[in-house]
Structures are given as structure tokens and as C-alpha cells.
């Protein structure tokens, strides 16, 4: 009982997710800044942002639904966190049963979906454009993402466990592309394009609600990287996990600095016509049993 509580609240659950989520986001920002030839914020900046935002007030405009605005980011955060409980981070998994891979997939969709719902609830034109874009992005990304997840899922009976997908380069590739999309990093930062639609769904958010969004985003970074490290790079112990996750983070940063933003149609075309079919190749290989 106590050990289960510890797992849920400390590792790999709540506390470690928040700490590592913000830390990885901080590293992401710092290294990006260096690649831009800027100095950038300190690594612990996301913590400071969170604390400061928590101390501010919530503003609910006339057209918005305060209730949904409050709960949407919390549900986003909770779904990203729940995924972590199924992952065998560092070799031991806390909640694990046959077929839990599907729960992971659903939970990750929930996180994006409630981000969009939170945007719709604000009644701001920029937010509604951003939310529509977020929904389209979910449709675009889920195709290659789910196919690549099922490819590795077939290899381990749909239960989340460490797996090194070196036989399936296309599945690995499409997973990495969809991670970039799920975290809305360039070239997929379409729903939060500040130059086009201010902050997208987050335009009207302020104070603790925005802090919860930041938290959900930070945990999402940690969750997606952990998933990559465990499910696709096969981290069985803590050392391997650390190496894999940092390597993945670095890859995210490199891709983020060398690409500009895609238009929504270009993103759909890329993910459905190029990345998705590539993932299908590997799925077919698994189904037909053509692999080493």
C-alpha cells in the first residue's frame, strides 16, 4: 500500500514528473537558446514561471466559461501524468496489465483534446482558430503515432514494456515526428503560432490556470520522452533511461531549431501522405513476420 502510494506520488508519479518535466523543458529552452546564439533563461526558469503564475489571479472574460477553463488544463495534466504510471521507468512499472498500451494512446489524445476544449471555452477568436487547428493536428498526428505504437505493441502483446525498435526504423521515425507534433514544437507549432494567432488556445489564460497549462506541457515533454526511451529505445535500467531520454531531448531540440513552421495543410499532407505510410510499411512487416 505504502509503496504504491509512493509510486503514484513520488516516482514515477506526481513529484518526479513535475520536477523532471520542468527540468527537461528548461534544458530544451536553454539548449535551443544556445543554438540560436542567445544566452537564454536559466534551466530552472519553468519552476519560477510556475510559482509566479500560481500567485496571480485568474481572469475570466465575459464570453468565457470559467469552469471549463479551470478544469481543462487540470485534465490535460492528469492524463499526461497517468500515462507515466504505466511506463516502466527505470525498469519497474507500477500499473501494468495486458493491453495497457491502448490506455496510453487514449490518455495522450485526452491531453491534446482538453487543450483544445480549454481554448474553445474562452470565446476568443484567436483561441477558437487555435483550437480548430489543435483538433486538426490531433487527427493528423494520431495516424502515424497510433500505427507506430501498434507496430511495437504487436511485438510485446500490447502491454507496455521496454522494447528496442531497431528492426523498425520507419516506426521509430514516425514516432519521433509525432512526438514533435504532440509537443507542438517546430515545425508543428501551428496551434500556438504567436505570429499568427497570438497564443492560440492560451490567448485568454492567465494566473493559476495558465500555470496548470504550463505544468501539463512540462509533464507532457517528460511523458513523451520517457515513452520514446522505454518503448522505442528499450531502456531497462535507470542509467539507460537517462542516456536515452537525454539523447531524445537533444534530437527534439535539433529538429526544432532547423525547421520553420508548416501551414496546417502542409502538416496534414506530410503526416498523412509521407510519415503515416512509412509507419504502415513497418506494421505490414510485423504482421507478415518479415523481420529479424
Amino acid at each position, binding site marked *: 500500500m505504502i509503496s504504491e502510494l509512493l509510486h503514484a506520488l513520488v516516482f514515477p508519479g506526481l513529484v518526479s514528473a513535475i520536477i523532471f518535466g520542468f527540468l527537461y523543458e528548461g534544458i530544451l529552452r536553454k539548449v535551443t537558446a544556445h*543554438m*540560436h*546564439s*542567445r544566452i537564454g533563461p536559466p534551466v530552472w526558469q519553468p519552476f519560477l514561471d510556475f510559482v509566479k503564475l500560481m500567485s496571480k489571479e485568474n481572469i475570466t472574460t465575459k464570453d468565457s466559461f470559467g469552469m471549463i477553463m479551470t478544469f481543462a488544463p487540470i485534465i490535460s495534466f492528469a492524463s499526461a501524468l497517468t500515462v507515466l504510471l504505466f511506463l516502466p521507468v527505470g525498469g519497474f512499472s507500477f500499473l501494468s496489465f495486458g493491453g495497457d498500451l491502448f490506455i496510453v494512446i487514449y490518455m495522450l489524445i485526452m491531453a491534446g483534446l482538453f487543450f483544445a476544449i480549454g481554448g474553445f471555452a474562452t470565446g476568443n*477568436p*484567436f483561441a477558437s*482558430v487555435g483550437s480548430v487547428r489543435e483538433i486538426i493536428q490531433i487527427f493528423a498526428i494520431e495516424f502515424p503515432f497510433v500505427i507506430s505504437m501498434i507496430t511495437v505493441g504487436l511485438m510485446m502483446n500490447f502491454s507496455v514494456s521496454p522494447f528496442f525498435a531497431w528492426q523498425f526504423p520507419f516506426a521509430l521515425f514516425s514516432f519521433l515526428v509525432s512526438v514533435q507534433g504532440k509537443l507542438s514544437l*517546430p*515545425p508543428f*507549432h*501551428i496551434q500556438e*503560432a*504567436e*505570429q*499568427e*494567432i*497570438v497564443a492560440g488556445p492560451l490567448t485568454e489564460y492567465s494566473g493559476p490556470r495558465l500555470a496548470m497549462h504550463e505544468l501539463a506541457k512540462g509533464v507532457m515533454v517528460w511523458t513523451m520522452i520517457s515513452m520514446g526511451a522505454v518503448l522505442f529505445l528499450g531502456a531497462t535500467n535507470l542509467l539507460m533511461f537517462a542516456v536515452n531520454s537525454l539523447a531524445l531531448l537533444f534530437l527534439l531540440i535539433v529538429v526544432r*531549431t*532547423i*525547421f*520553420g*513552421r*508548416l*501551414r*496546417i*495543410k*502542409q502538416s496534414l499532407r506530410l503526416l498523412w501522405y509521407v510519415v503515416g505510410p512509412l509507419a504502415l510499411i513497418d506494421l505490414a512487416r510485423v504482421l507478415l513476420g518479415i523481420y529479424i
Partner: protein
Amino acid sequence: MHDFFLPVGPQHPALIEPVHMKLRVEGETVVSLEGLELGYNHKGIEKALENRSWTKSVFLSERVCGICGNFHTSAFTQGVERLMGIEIPDRAKHIRVIVSELERIHSHLLCLGLVAHEMGLDTLFHYIFRDREIAMDLLEMLSGNRVHFSMNTIGGVRRDLDTENIRKVEEGLEKLEDRLYHYVKVFEKDSSVKRRTKGIGILSEKMATEMDTVGPCARASKVNYDIRNEGYLTYKNLKFKPVIGERGDVMERNVVRFKECIQSVKLIRDSLFSIPKGDIALKLPMMIKIGEGLETMSRVEAPRGELAYYVKSAGDRPYRVKIRTPTYANFHMLGHILKGYQIADIPVIVASMDPCMSCTDRVTLVNTKGKETVLGKEDFHKLNGGHHHD
């Protein structure tokens, strides 16, 4: 799909300067530009110029714009010198060209950096701004100032340059030229950039002529319109030929700007090579007097296009100064190049037009509803404090 209004500005993260655009949007597609509100940045400089002596006016006219201030003083002093009937020394002309072209480089790089930023490619934005610093540093070395250079004065320029300066400028240009050639390649070849700029915001040659488009926007649409063609200052001796583009889309406008920067580097080099010895300014009395009622029109090619100053004299001060800035001329075509493209393209198209609100906001209309008033000459005299009777 239903359509709605998308307000862009006056406070917007992409357009840092205040302008309000009211766009009718259907889904992600722009249907039309319904309204454009300027004037958030009105500073009343034209009126203020009427209450200053000629020499002081030069410094005020530089404050019209923080990016192309030197071009404003060039146009103003050129007009005043024409009214006085004087010719400035050759060395001063060369220095004016050198400072102008350096300023053109930093202004174009600012615009191009912003275009990269608008398409979400922040890395390129930071790289371009880092290289823009080379031009800024050279200007600081030559003039002592980073932003408002205060180089021009009536009858010449205020600071000379020595051999040490010339050597440093040449070194800086060498570095800059390398980078500029690199960027031309990036903007023409890089897939990430091409995807966002090619075939976007097309301005046809016919439209460009009809809408009186000026500057790089016009030249990217095959319109050969550049005031430097007329050969003011030393441009005639430098055998200036404008950069003309073909397609008139965002990509072409960017590439034309980079090629103009490369051309500016060459113009500066030639000027440094051929700079004559001599005075940098004519000796003029402290209080300049010009015959009352004389008027002139003076034009220069600013980074954004044709900049025109109308100057009329009231003896010891200007009676009226009217400034027509290039961005104001370019706003006419904005509605046409936005129509039919995506919301995602709005910032890129607007940035590729390189708008400068600080330059543009010359006239403000307060409460235009209700009765219309026509102001005559006498009313203007009254507004002018009753100073002038002619």
C-alpha cells in the same frame, strides 16, 4: 463554413508597431481586408517642424523613423539645399551615400530577420540579427550613434571619416558580404523557407503599377522604379542599376532585398575607393534664411521605397513640410496581396511588405463622423499661431 472578423493589431505579437487590420476570414482563408486603421503612432512632427529654425528641423526630421532616419534627413536637407541654391562638397556626397547604404543594409536585414521570425524559423531570425550587428557597429563607429546618426546637416555632413575608419568599414563589409551570399542561398533553396514563401502574396506587375507600389515590393514585381536611377548624390557616377525581380511573391521580395544589400556593399566599396579629399560641409550662417514662399519637392530612395519631402519656406523656418513615406504608398496594395491566402500567411505577407508605422502615421483623423470641415489658407495661418502673412 461561416466567416468572421479577425482583428490584427493594434496590439499583436507579430506586428510590433501599432496598426489595426480588420480581416474577414472564412475558416483559415482570408476573404478580404475590410478596414485598415493608421494613426496610432501620430507624433505631430510635420506641425512641429514649422516652429523650428532650418538647422534644428533637420534633427527633428530624423526622429520620424528609428530605422531609416538618415534617409529622412537626406531628403529634407536635399530639399533645403535646393531652395538655397547650393551644392554640397563631393566628399560630403560620398559620406552621405556610405551612411545611407549602410543604413539600407541594416534596415533590410531587420525586415528579413522579421520575415524569418514570422514563418516560425527563429534560428534564422537570430542569425540574421547577429549579422545585422556588423552594419550597426560600423554605423556607430562612423557616426557615434547606434540609432539616430545625425550625420546630415544643411550644406554637408557633420563627421568626417579617416583612413582607419575606411579600413574597418572594408573589413566589416567583407564579413557581411559572405553572410549575405549565404542568406540568398538559404532564402532561394532551403525547403523550410521555400514552403512558406514561394507563390505567397503575389503582386502582379500591373497591380504594382496601378497601386503605386514603391521600393523593393515594386521592384520584385518587375517594376523598374528606384529614385537612385535619377542619380542624386553620387549615384550617377556609381553607375547604379536597380535589382529587379520577376515573380512578385514573398520569396522574390526577400531575395530582392538581399541582392540590394549585396549591391549596397558594392556601392559603399566604390564610394570608399573614390572618395575625394576636401571639406565635408559648406560654411553657412547660424541662422539660415531662405526666400519666403519658395517651395520644392525632394525625393530619395529609402530602404522601403520612395521617400518624398515637400518643403515650403517661411524665411527663417519651414512654412510647411509634407512627408510622403514609402510604407504609406505600399498600404494600398496590402488588401490585394492578402486576399485568398491563409491566416498563417498574413504575418509573412505583411512582414515582407516591411511596414514602418512610425514613418507612416503622419495624419490623424479624430471623430470623422458628422460634419465635414474644410480648412482654408487663413485657417492654417490661424492654426500656425498667426505667424505668417503673405
